[in-house]
């Protein structure tokens, strides 16, 4: 029983950064913007979070710093694609490349330093209830944030007027503009929200998952988060399911390596990436479903006519 609980806990820890980053990107893409810089924002959040936590000794300040760094970094993308109408694919790529380089440079002095870890939730009496106590009341704080965030985004997108407006911009920015909606302003806020989420996801990596700084520690999670959004056909609860499936794959291959299964470790390590491809193929096979769900103006630059 204990082993099962522990495996479930590690799956949740592996799924949390994927979930947060993907939920952020989902909002961005629902507004019609494709930000391929998730990996870059995530790694910047990771280095910013680790640095602030390491220098101040407080993991909470670290987490806050991760969010702020991610949001500021995404602002760069927002100015380029929204104000200067640059190609979103190329700009997102350059955000990732810049983030990987910049984080490596900033993090040089952090390599090998002991980090600080966010403490798990511990409610006296409740968290020690067998099985349920640990799973529901004994996880790290970011786990609870990720679940709350998913619920909040679900409510925001499908139950509020502002969410409806955001989705309408994603489906047709020209019509939205004609109705007097401030397309660019909405998109700025969406992109910054996505950046804050990616930063938080990165902070989770360097403050909870492995409380230290390792170069390129995001290891493609930002890209997997992007794939999750497609997999989920832009629906928050499916992102939640997808993130946990991927968390399970990620943890599964680690456990398989530890148990000494006679398969080269490199093959097991490549499973999450191969799984991403397989899942993308399965979901995009159904062209009608994809067409119906993809925000219609996704990735197209918008320059308001005056």
């Amino acid at each position, binding site marked *: 029983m204990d082993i099962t609980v522990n495996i479930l806990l590690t799956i949740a820890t592996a799924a949390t950064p994927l979930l947060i980053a993907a939920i952020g990107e989902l909002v961005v893409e629902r507004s019609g913007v494709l930000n391929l810089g998730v990996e870059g924002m995530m790694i910047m959040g990771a280095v910013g979070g680790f640095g602030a936590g390491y220098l101040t000794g407080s993991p909470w300040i670290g987490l806050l710093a991760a969010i702020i760094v991610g949001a500021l970094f995404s602002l760069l993308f927002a100015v380029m694609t929204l104000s200067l109408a640059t190609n979103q694919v190329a700009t997102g790529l350059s955000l990732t490349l810049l983030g990987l380089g910049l984080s*490596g440079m900033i993090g040089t002095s952090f390599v090998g330093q002991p980090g600080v870890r966010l403490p798990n939730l511990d409610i006296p009496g409740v968290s020690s209830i067998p099985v349920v106590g640990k799973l529901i009341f004994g996880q790290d704080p970011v786990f609870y944030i990720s679940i709350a965030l998913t619920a909040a985004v679900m409510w925001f997108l499908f139950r509020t007027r502002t969410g409806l407006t955001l989705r309408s911009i994603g489906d047709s920015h020209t019509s939205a503009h004609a109705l007097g909606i401030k397309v660019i302003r909405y998109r700025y806020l969406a992109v910054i929200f996505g950046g804050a989420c990616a930063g938080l996801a990165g902070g989770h990596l360097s403050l909870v998952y492995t409380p230290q700084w390792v170069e390129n520690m995001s290891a493609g999670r930002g*890209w997997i988060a992007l794939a999750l959004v497609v997999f989920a056909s832009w629906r928050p609860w499916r992102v939640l399911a997808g993130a946990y499936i991927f968390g399970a794959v990620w943890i599964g291959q680690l456990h398989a390596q530890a148990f000494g299964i006679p398969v080269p470790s*490199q093959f097991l390590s490549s499973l999450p990436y191969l799984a991403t491809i397989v899942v993308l193929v399965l979901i995009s096979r159904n062209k009608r479903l994809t067409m119906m769900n993809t925000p219609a103006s996704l990735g197209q630059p918008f320059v308001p006519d005056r």
Partner: protein
Amino acid sequence: MMRIELVKRPQRSALFSVLSPFIAFALTIIAGGIMFALLGVNPLDAFNIYFIQPVSEVWQLHELAIKAAPLILIAVGLSVCYKANIWNIGAEGQFIFGAIFGSIIPVLFPQFEGPLVIPLMLLLGMVGGAFYASIPAFLKTRFSTNEILTSLMLVYVAQLFLDWLVRGPWRDPQGHGFPQTIQFSDSATLPQLMPDAGRANWGFVFALVAAVAIWLMMSRMLKGFEVRVLGSSPRAGRFAGFGFNRMVFFSFLLSGALAGLAGISEVSGAIGQLQPVISPGYGFTAIIVAFLGRLNPLGIVAAGLVLALTYLGGEAVQSALGISDKVARVFQGMLLFFVLGCDTLIHYRIRLIGMALMKPDAAKLDAAPKLEEAR
């Protein structure tokens, strides 16, 4: 509070088409200077070490050519993809698979020698790169799977596969347990151009030939026209009878083959064996090269040399000033940002508007009487 407003130019500005890479480079230098100052280094000293000293002697120019060759080869192929609006960003993986396929002969058949070895290796390298690129192309055409994500995921898979090969079945039994294959024999080594002057090998010549060939294709041949039409308007392309799926395969196979050629040239010419890591991110840096060269093969040659210099400069500041060589990555990322930003100038005029001027009430009051008159 200022606001940026874009005004569409009636036609693309010829002036800024030429100027924009230079403006971007100048802005990168300024931002880089600020970065060096923040790191506590005199920017002028740093620039001297970064951009001037690495290319002040002949043998160093050879090193520049070694670094530029894979960048140009890959970027020229990518430029065709990007012109067609097809996003192959997995060139790093295709580079690795080219290197692996090409190494089959020297690693598994080391007794096979003679003048045929190198051409066969190069051919196998191109086949390997094209094969690996055909996977995302197939998935895109058959299942309409997003090629950006699949080609990128395959990079991680390729890196792990190479890692397994050189630690497992292909490891040199006499290599004292180091994760590497046997050293390639002389007949499996790409010859140097001028062995007396420096290390530059035939890879650089391949890069120049590829650039000229693709330039001819894009500007003088029907295929190049097809690429441009499908890239700017898929609908118009369909009316002209150009197949989009065929174009996906064509551009992926072409760019994959060139990346594979770059991979085997690098391994056979510059490294001499397979190792767990054979590329300092050439496949990703080549994306920057392609855009800095404005997706024009001849511009890409110049851009490739510039980006090669950022690698050499990064190594130079690391040894001279003790700054992390990640500085190179930062320079490359900033350069791409500024290039993309400056390209806006080609299509748009940029106006800065103060908030005071655009109070909505004032605008409405102004417009209302005119509306009345119009009625």
